[in-house]
């Protein structure tokens, strides 16, 4: 009896070692869904097909809760090997990430053969904090102006000349309104966070400065520029007659009832399939500098349990490099502008419908430094929630813009000071 048990245990041990030696499993968690998730799946499938010694298990689909899950899995000692982190979440997440330049097994950036010069400097630097480097850039994404060419024609506007200045924009809106359509929607589906993004665009264009002071001791957005920006946003829904409170821009645009829409590059598959004859342009210059709202997805290695073997780190970096080097797929099907410079030279990408109709314009905005990233603070999501809550109330006409900013400022300061 004992012999059999010993034999069995030995067999299991040998089998386990063989299995370990053969295939390293890398878990890769993302917060992507739909077109994005498909694009990432495509990249990872290519990887798995061309590697026998490393296999990646991709878990994705959840946008909410993602960061909490990442942290909890680190705490529980069962983190994925590879993850995604928005640059603006770095400060919040830093305790839970492996410093790539000083990991327990050495400098992973060198070990993985990643060259910082392959990325735009600002994007690369966004992954740095307190002297260490944590992130590998994947993309820049952001908002642009989508417009309906047929509506432009019906309103007597030139379908190939979307408005790019305030004057042109006002004229275009009035013409579209007169033709019997919704003129403009500044915020995708009008969720509070989208309204806040629209306000941020106007705020930055006006030169309102930063939303918070340098040390994040207090809010600084309650200034004349902030007020003008919010008043403009409120007027779009309440005074100009360009849209209605609660209107869903995605739906209105897809239904061919909306002239112009601010939306992210992720709107591309919907626009393409909608049957609408659409065009794309950079965000117009309303107030001085044509900034737009955007962010950057980057790759990260969550803090691994002590004693994780160098082979696992090495394999993870191999996956990371593969994802970056194949990010032209990411751009083509997901619509986000790849951060890896060589990706933007891929001929299939350059010839693709997405790139020629909208991607190149977003890329231009990004290259010109016109994409403003969100705030980066340990309690950033709470601060943003506070701001957008009052912005939404102002847009709904429940409080004045001045009151909205004052209340948002008070609540942000409370968050910054208190527990």
């Amino acid at each position, binding site marked *: 009896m004992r012999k059999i048990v010993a034999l069995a245990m030995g067999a299991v041990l040998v089998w386990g070692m063989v299995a370990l030696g053969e295939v390293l499993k890398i878990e890769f968690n993302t917060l992507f*869904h*739909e077109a994005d*998730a*498909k694009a990432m799946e495509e990249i990872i499938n290519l990887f798995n097909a061309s590697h026998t010694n490393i296999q990646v298990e991709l*878990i*994705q*689909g*959840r*946008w*909410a*809760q993602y960061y909490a*899950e990442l942290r*909890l*899995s680190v*705490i*529980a000692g*069962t983190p994925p090997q590879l993850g995604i982190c928005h640059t603006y979440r770095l400060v919040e997440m830093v305790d839970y990430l492996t410093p790539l330049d000083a990991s327990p097994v050495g400098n992973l950036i060198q070990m993985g053969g990643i060259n910082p010069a392959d990325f735009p400097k600002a994007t690369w630097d966004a992954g740095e904090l307190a002297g260490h480097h944590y992130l590998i850039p994947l993309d820049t994404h952001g908002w642009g102006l989508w417009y309906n060419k047929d509506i432009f024609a019906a309103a007597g506007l030139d379908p190939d000349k979307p408005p790019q200045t305030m004057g042109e924009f006002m004229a275009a809106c009035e013409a579209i309104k007169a033709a019997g359509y919704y003129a403009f929607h500044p915020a995708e*589906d009008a969720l509070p966070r989208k309204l806040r993004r629209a306000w941020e665009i106007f705020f930055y264009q006006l030169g309102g400065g930063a939303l918070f002071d340098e040390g994040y001791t207090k809010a600084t957005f309650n200034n004349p520029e902030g007020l003008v920006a919010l008043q403009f946003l409120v007027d779009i829904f309440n005074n100009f007659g360009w849209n209605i409170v609660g209107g*869903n821009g*995605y*739906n*209105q645009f*897809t*239904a*061919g*009832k909306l002239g112009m829409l601010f939306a*992210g590059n*992720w*709107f591309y*598959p*919907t626009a393409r399939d*909608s*049957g609408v004859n659409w065009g794309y342009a950079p965000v117009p210059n309303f107030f001085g500098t044509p900034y737009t709202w955007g962010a950057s997805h980057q790759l990260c290695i969550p803090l691994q349990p002590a004693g994780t073997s160098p082979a696992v780190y090495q394999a993870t970096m191999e996956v990371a490099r593969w994802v970056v080097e194949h990010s032209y797929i990411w751009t083509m099907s997901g619509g986000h502008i790849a951060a890896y410079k060589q990706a933007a030279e891929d001929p299939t990408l350059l010839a693709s419908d997405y790139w020629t109709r909208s991607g190149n314009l977003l890329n231009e905005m990004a290259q010109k430094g016109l994409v403003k990233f969100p705030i980066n603070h340990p309690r950033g999501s709470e601060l943003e929630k506070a701001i957008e809550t009052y912005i939404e109330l102002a847009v709904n006409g429940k409080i004045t813009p001045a009151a909205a900013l004052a209340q948002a400022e008070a609540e942000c300061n409370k968050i910054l000071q208190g527990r």
Partner: protein
Amino acid sequence: MTKIKAWAPYLVMYAIAFLWVIPTLWVAETAFKPNPDIFSIPPKWFPSRLTTAHIAQLFASWPFGRWLLNSLILASLVTAGSLFVSTLAAFSFARLQWRGRDAAFLTILVFMLLPLEVSVIPLYFMMIRFRLLNTIYGAALPMIALPIGVFLLRQFFLNIPRDLDDAARIDGCSSLGVLTRVIIPNSIPVFAAYGMYIFNYAWNEFFWSLICLRSAQKVTLPVGLRLIQGAFEINYGLITSAAFMASLPSLVVFLILRQRIIRGIALSSGIKG
């Protein structure tokens, strides 16, 4: 005059029923309408043509079939598990003597309506530890030992005449024998009623499933619908077709088992023993 009097109740009842069914019909209709008809003002009651494009798109871009399967597995696991453990426990509370029994039952009873919300955070840690996060088992386990099951079954068992037990005991049955030969055969209606209750409960559970299941392949129907709705592109044709497809199984089961379900509720509503 008498004719009107005879027909008025019908008129009122059917008018109310019609109002009640409109939202469901409207969703079902939207699911098959082409986009221009969906977004038409005023609404088109009768679409210019019917299309299955939304449903095709639903299956092409989301693992909808998988969600259906996950929901079925989850609900079946919970139902089977809950019936099993609740029956044993209810039998013990109803028929066996042991010290502390009544105190234990009272404890469970007081916790009967305990909101799961309090425990989601510890549960979440636990599931990570046990490596059950993002699995159907992790989603199912907290739903199995529901006090309400023990409460209902016990109440029903108490109404089964004790003489039957005694007769079985005299024939040499152990407690297990009493349970399998007397109690269970006499309790089929309450099993059916509680089974349907708990199946429906698990089928519809949202809060914990939302937290526990994270990859698009692993989620159940209610959470899957949330994934579609929470995605960047919102498309009413797609989302109503998802809602419609998600209600189809309920509708089919309901059409077949209507009387039984309604009688089951009367039985499990806690006021009839």
